[in-house]
């Protein structure tokens, strides 16, 4: 018995395990972990809700002021909620050696990474979008702006997850990278924030906001194609 049969088996097997299967595998795993800790889904959401309730407390209850700053608050809150949930993405996988093992698996790292990012969005981004209208009521958001709010969140939150992933990947090897992460990531988030709130404000005036929406869409597709590779490279550096 030489090494031949072993090798043969390997190449066969890998052809069958297509990208799609690797993607589904990691996605399912991450969702399982999140489901195990239902908190993982509920908590970013509650965090979002809590931040949004903090502002009226800090600023005061006047409906007019609140409705004026509502888009900004909702988006900043979404941004911070995403930010805080980011370390779930790679940190624990790095600490317990899983990330190392993923790097050593025969699948291209960007597929695995994309699956992890998608899972992250499903767990944190999606629930935010679902609850946002309710919070908009609490902040007396202008009625014309609801569609704009939802559309910007739908296109924008995936960008937050994608760009955030780059940040986490870069900082994951560093002890206590938590706050450094925010530093790296927040500047990347600013364009999304600006265009999204501008879209909502424009909508409140009853004007068309497709221009801003197009820019956010462009950011989305751009980061969707580039981020997984950047993340893959960053992870290789971090685990060295």
């Amino acid at each position, binding site marked *: 018995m*030489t090494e031949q049969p072993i090798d043969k088996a390997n190449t066969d097997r*890998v052809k*069958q395990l297509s990208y799609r299967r690797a993607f589904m*595998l990691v996605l399912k795993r991450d969702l*399982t972990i999140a489901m195990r800790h239902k908190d993982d889904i509920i908590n970013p959401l509650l965090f979002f809700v809590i931040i949004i309730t903090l502002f009226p407390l800090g600023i005061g209850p006047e409906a007019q002021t609140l409705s004026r700053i509502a888009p900004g608050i909702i988006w900043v809150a979404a941004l911070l909620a995403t930010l805080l949930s980011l370390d779930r993405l790679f940190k624990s*996988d790095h600490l317990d*050696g899983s990330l190392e093992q993923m790097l050593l698996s*025969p699948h291209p790292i960007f597929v695995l990474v994309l699956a992890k990012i998608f899972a992250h969005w499903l767990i944190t981004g999606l629930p935010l979008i679902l609850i946002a209208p309710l919070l908009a009521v609490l902040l007396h958001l202008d009625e014309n702006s609801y569609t704009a709010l939802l559309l910007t969140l739908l296109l924008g939150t995936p960008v937050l997850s994608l760009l955030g992933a780059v940040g986490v990947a870069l900082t994951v090897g560093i002890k206590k990278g938590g706050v450094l992460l925010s530093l790296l990531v927040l500047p990347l988030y600013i364009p999304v924030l600006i265009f999204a709130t501008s879209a909502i404000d424009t909508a409140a005036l009853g004007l068309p906001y497709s221009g801003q929406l197009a820019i956010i869409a462009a950011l989305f597709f751009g980061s969707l194609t580039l981020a997984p590779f950047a993340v893959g490279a960053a992870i290789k550096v971090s685990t060295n």
Partner: protein
Amino acid sequence: MPKPTSTPLISAVKLTCIREERLLFDELSLDIHPGDIVQVEGPNGSGKTSLLRILSGLSQPYDGIVNFKNQKINRCREEFQQNLLYLGHLAGVKGEMTAEENLKFNLALHGSCDNNSSVIDSATKNEQNTLAYLAKVNLSGFEDSLASHLSAGQHRRIALSRLYQSNAPIWILDEPFTAIDKQGVASLEALFTGHAQRGGCVILTTHQDLISINPDQIKKITLDYSYA
């Protein structure tokens, strides 16, 4: 049946490793053939882990080359990784998943395939296999325990169970016996011998003596950087 004249599975050419201005090893060359069991020896801090990580492509050496079947591993990374099983100081086991889920994920991530080299596609068969592998590392009855609720040794056993299904010829194992009880160590040693006989190679570090493996069969590499 080791064949000394075959192409080496892994060969290192003039590896040099420097950590914090300490020279750990210099111009270290080695060839590892199918059938070899290589034990890297040396006192704490002599560079065993550093060497193993370099061989598996996880770290870059200060100088030198690592080849897989005479090809630089950087050139054939994907193929190399299909042929490699590396277990380090960290177990790579997720505390939030059960023993079974952990194993299943590991198998699937690295491509699971049964012994008569046909790819398993049916989920049920996979299921059975997972349980069988867990049984092999004495974890039957703990399938549904979260890994974080297992003892230190059981935790590592989850990672080690991959050895029982792996078809990768190259095993690089950094202190695989950590926290494992005596019976466990014995069955791992048997596994290594079997793997070598089937044409694989095992590179490992351990501070315990390998008891049940024939000493003639073990190649030793001693890193003798003595501290201070």
